[in-house]
């Protein structure tokens, strides 16, 4: 186990280093820069902009800029945002709770509903329910989230008036738990739609695989009730591959949703990434990149460990 962890750690460090180089290069080589937002601001001359670029160090060679960024990062300094001058870690930290709330709710819904649909679809494969679920999953995966989000807002906020048209809380009033919950419904549902489709398809495939195994037949032959066979023997085994899927989902959980967060005016990580990319806010984009890469590596590591715990056949070496 210790050897496994050490190996993984070294592997991860190398990977993070490569990710940082590629990310930094792509980001900086893309045309434009953090100052192009000022190009048409009246009274701000090109001379002013050249001076500001120089003071910010943007006119130095890329390897020099990268080296400086890397050494500062190793010293624990993630840099400051070009947009609001706040430390990058604080900027990212400020968005985590909103994203966790939304993604947590959406993933919770999608795992519960998706697993259920998947299992039912597998047990009664090619039944009407299964076909509806299959078609439904295809539709859910194909609907553009942006469009669907707007439709939900039009239907439930503008016309019916049941749900707020986005935002995390009611603007300008004291936020209560119920207020948070009320605002969470629509974006969580919209986001969960796609996730449910994904989970239900994986679950169905995995479950179908399992219920045709010999040990299920053995269990049935022993005269165990069907309920016990399915939900105890089959489901537990069918869930194993889902652990890997959950590992992949962890970065998503904190990475946020670009489109849903924009439509529902949700101040999470997805929107932060989008805004920062638009402004070429290099330190924040690099921060998010490294953070996501770290989460992806951790997610996979945890998935491997949990899989080993859940399935004695797997050995970590």
């Amino acid at each position, binding site marked *: 186990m210790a050897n496994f962890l050490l190996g993984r750690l070294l592997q991860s460090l190398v990977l993070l280093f490569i990710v940082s180089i590629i990310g930094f290069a792509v980001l900086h080589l893309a045309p434009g820069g953090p100052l192009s937002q000022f190009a048409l601001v009246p009274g701000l001359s090109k001379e*002013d902009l050249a001076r500001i670029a120089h003071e910010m160090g943007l006119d130095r060679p890329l390897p020099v800029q990268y080296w400086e960024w890397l050494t500062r990062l190793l010293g624990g300094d993630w840099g400051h945002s070009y947009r609001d001058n706040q430390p990058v870690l604080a900027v990212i930290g400020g968005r985590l709770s909103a994203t966790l709330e939304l993604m947590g709710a959406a993933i919770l819904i999608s795992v519960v509903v998706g697993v259920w649909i998947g299992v039912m679809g597998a047990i009664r494969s090619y039944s009407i329910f299964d076909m509806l679920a299959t078609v439904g999953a295809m539709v859910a995966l194909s609907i553009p989230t942006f469009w669907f989000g707007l439709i939900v807002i039009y239907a439930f906020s503008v016309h019916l008036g049941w749900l707020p048209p986005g935002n995390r809380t009611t603007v300008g009033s004291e936020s209560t738990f119920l207020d948070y919950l009320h605002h969470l419904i629509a974006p969580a549902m919209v986001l969960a739609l796609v996730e449910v489709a994904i989970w239900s398809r994986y679950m169905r495939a995995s479950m179908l695989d399992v219920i045709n195994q010999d040990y299920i037949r053995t269990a049935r032959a022993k005269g165990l009730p069907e309920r016990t066979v399915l939900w105890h023997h089959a489901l537990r085994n069918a869930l194993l591959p889902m652990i890997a899927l959950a590992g992949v989902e962890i970065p998503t959980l904190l990475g946020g949703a670009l489109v849903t967060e924009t439509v529902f005016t949700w101040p999470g990580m997805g929107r932060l990434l989008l805004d920062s990319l638009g402004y070429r806010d290099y330190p924040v984009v690099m921060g998010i990149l490294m953070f996501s890469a770290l989460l992806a590596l951790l997610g996979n590591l945890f998935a491997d460990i949990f899989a080993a715990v859940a399935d004695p056949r797997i050995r970590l070496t």
Partner: protein
Amino acid sequence: MSEDRKNEIRSHTLLTTTRRHLLALGASAGALAWAGPKAGWIASAKAATPPSKPTGQAVIGLSQEPTVFLPLLAHIEVDEGVYFNLFSPLWRVDEKGSFQPDLVAEVPTLKNGGISADGLQWHLKLNDKAKWHDGTPFSADDVKFNIELIQNPKFLAGRRSGIDLIQDIKVLGPSELTFTLKKPYAPLPSILSWTFLVPKHLLEKASDINKPEAFLAQPVGTGAFKWVERVPGDHITLSANDAYHGTGPYLEKLIFKYVPDLTVLYTQFQTGDVDYIGIQGITPDHYEEAKSLADRHVTPVPQPFIENIAFNLGNPIFQDPAVREALYLAMDKQSIIEQIYYGLPSPTESFLPKQSWAFNPDLPKQAFDQEKAKKLLDDAGWKPGADGVREKDGKRLEFLNSTTAGNHVREQAQQLLQQTWGDIGAKMSIKNLPPAVMWGDYWNLSQFDTTMVGIDFMVGPDPDATQYFASTGIVAKGGAGNNTTQYANPDVDKLLAEGAATVDVEKRRAAYMKMQELTRKDLPFLPIFQYAMVQGVKGKLEGFTPNVNVQENCWNASTWFWAN
């Protein structure tokens, strides 16, 4: 992304011109009255009176997020919406273009002796009632600190022009100071009208003046509203400053809510979550629907941006005046305005907005005439080639047109131009770029052929367009300015210098009038129209006034209030 947003403004904003529209608007916007072409829409006598103490809150919806809270740093207009309410300039410019005292007791002029006859000696008397939000009195030392900070080479000041001419600042007392200019500079009062002052006592101790973390977390100003909190990516809350030295505030809370998508922003206005749509306004495609909303005032208000086709005069084909003139003749301005911009923007021939005191209303009017355009090109020696594209001396009349990618309204206008220009044998191809690319070196270093762009050529309310038209401002040739068309006309240079060097308004007006004639004749850019934005206000929110002299429309939020 600011450019993106700016382009949203430019493409989604409207301006009224035709009488039909004026009537339609008059009916829908009861609180406004048309005060003639110069003044535009103004709020008529209000039935309601402001409350005796600050009451209620207003949620201002913005599709861009204010992020810079040290107002002397480089920033974009959306930030200024916050500055106008949190900070104060020495004086501010009202909707008529005149200066109103804010942190000064009176605005210095030649007449009251605040400015010497040669324009070099300035004497400021400050408002002794003004206080910073933490209770510290505002003083002449603060003014000196701000000027010196802007001049400090270590400080990443946004705008320095004009203020870098100030020297020999002498503080005569707590509310009196004098300074001298290195040379007379007429736009200085305008520049000072959007220079928002920051407190010396909080900033002089900052270890890094470009990142004063304590101040940025809790900015302190002298404005009508005080800082409460900022939730990044979401909103900023300000609360009434009871000790404000000016009129108001009448609202208890002012909230700037960031809603990145314009359609969603409109929806939140529809449902009542947003009380006021600032800066970007309502998109034109929602204009008709918005007018019919119950309990909402939806009005187009003029903005200083001029939509135009900027030529790169470094490109040999555009050096021929006949080509520029022919392309202008073959531009179907009316269809662009009527069909693509929902019939509301107002055509223009000038680089100045109609509300400017230097606007020249007598410029020759462009008329769509493709036959005349063809003849002009024929006469100039541009003969149609085998594929119909004209050629002269081996050069084909073929070029690119660029703007921010993803701006659908502009794309339609580009397609229309492509068609009407194609008819006369000029082949235009569309090459649109992401904002950070479009407005980077491609624009600054004049690497484009032609650009469709909306520009505010003024310096605040001042018509001085030296940055854009002086031959010294061509960055591609090593100059310092924004002259991306590479326009060079010695007469224009002379008129610009004259206009900036005198404080005599009549002399300045004469210079700028003449200059507009020259740019109309030379056509370094083809003027299309002056923008406006469709402003949306919830029924009983009163007190707002459109002001073409500022970049955003929350400039007078201190006098907004809810009518009972």
